[in-house]
């Protein structure tokens, strides 16, 4: 299965707390199903390596969970990095993605209709 790892623990040469500057809490609500999109060409921006890595995964609309897998990072670590990038205007959030209040009735009806016609 692509993307899956059989071993139960993968160490990283750089500790998570180094990547996040010691912070554990993101400033935005970013969940695995939050959709992001890059606002900036990773090649034309002077940002650090980890920001560029995230940007290189945000060339289209993509979820936090997918970016995390592609970068080999836990979602919780990505959330801290991505929060700063949102504040810096490098990436944007699709505001209706995985809202805390859940999908509206109208959205649920669209989802049901689509599932019934898959």
């Amino acid at each position, binding site marked *: 299965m692509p993307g899956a790892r059989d071993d139960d623990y993968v160490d990283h040469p750089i500790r998570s707390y180094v990547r996040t500057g010691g912070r554990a809490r993101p400033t935005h609500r970013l969940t695995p199903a939050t959709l992001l999109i890059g606002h900036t060409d990773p090649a034309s921006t002077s940002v650090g390596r980890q920001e560029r890595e995230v940007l290189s995964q945000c060339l289209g609309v993509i979820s936090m969970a997918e970016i995390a897998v592609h970068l080999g990072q836990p979602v919780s670590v990505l959330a801290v990095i991505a929060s700063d990038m949102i504040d810096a205007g490098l990436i944007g959030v699709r505001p209706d993605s995985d809202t805390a209040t*859940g999908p509206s009735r109208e959205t649920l009806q669209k989802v049901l209709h689509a599932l019934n016609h898959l």
Partner: protein
Amino acid sequence: MLSTTSDDNHYLAPTVVESVKILVVGSFGVGKTTLIGSVSEIDPLRTEETITEASEGIDAVDATPEKTTTTVAMDFGRITLTDEIALYLFGTPGQRRFWDLWSGLAEGAAGALVLVDTRRLEDSFEVLDQLETRTSLPFVVAINQFPGAPNYEPDQIRTALDLDDETPIVVCNAKNRNACVRALAALVRHALKTH
């Protein structure tokens, strides 16, 4: 470590502005990842978090008593349902520590599909208990009918799992895409009733 997802569906369509998530919960080996793989437009992906705690006696699969850092994996997939809406399916065992770890996972979810193996009904008790006590999510029980597993009537399952009359029970072969889609539709229909 890097995924081999093809470039064709690496990204969602640029028109997608909304994501909805459904949790697929159930004990180990009940078929969560199989179900997700049956309906997902991408190969199921696995994301991991590490938790630091005494893991002895909790996880029968990969726990080593001396280790205090445990890696918890969550498999997920996605389906683009309309030009604007993507559905994400997250598979999680649903034990207590998973809710703590994936805070924000249940929050905002459309609902949960509880996969059940009739050979091991007792394995579902903790998952159902956690769903009822820690979330207000609408849920549907989906029997993943394994070959040779006891063939109970839905009412027998309802009694055995102590489910409310309102909780739908569907039979679902996790390997069959149409059956999985029908189970998801049953969940969304149930969510609409309780919305």
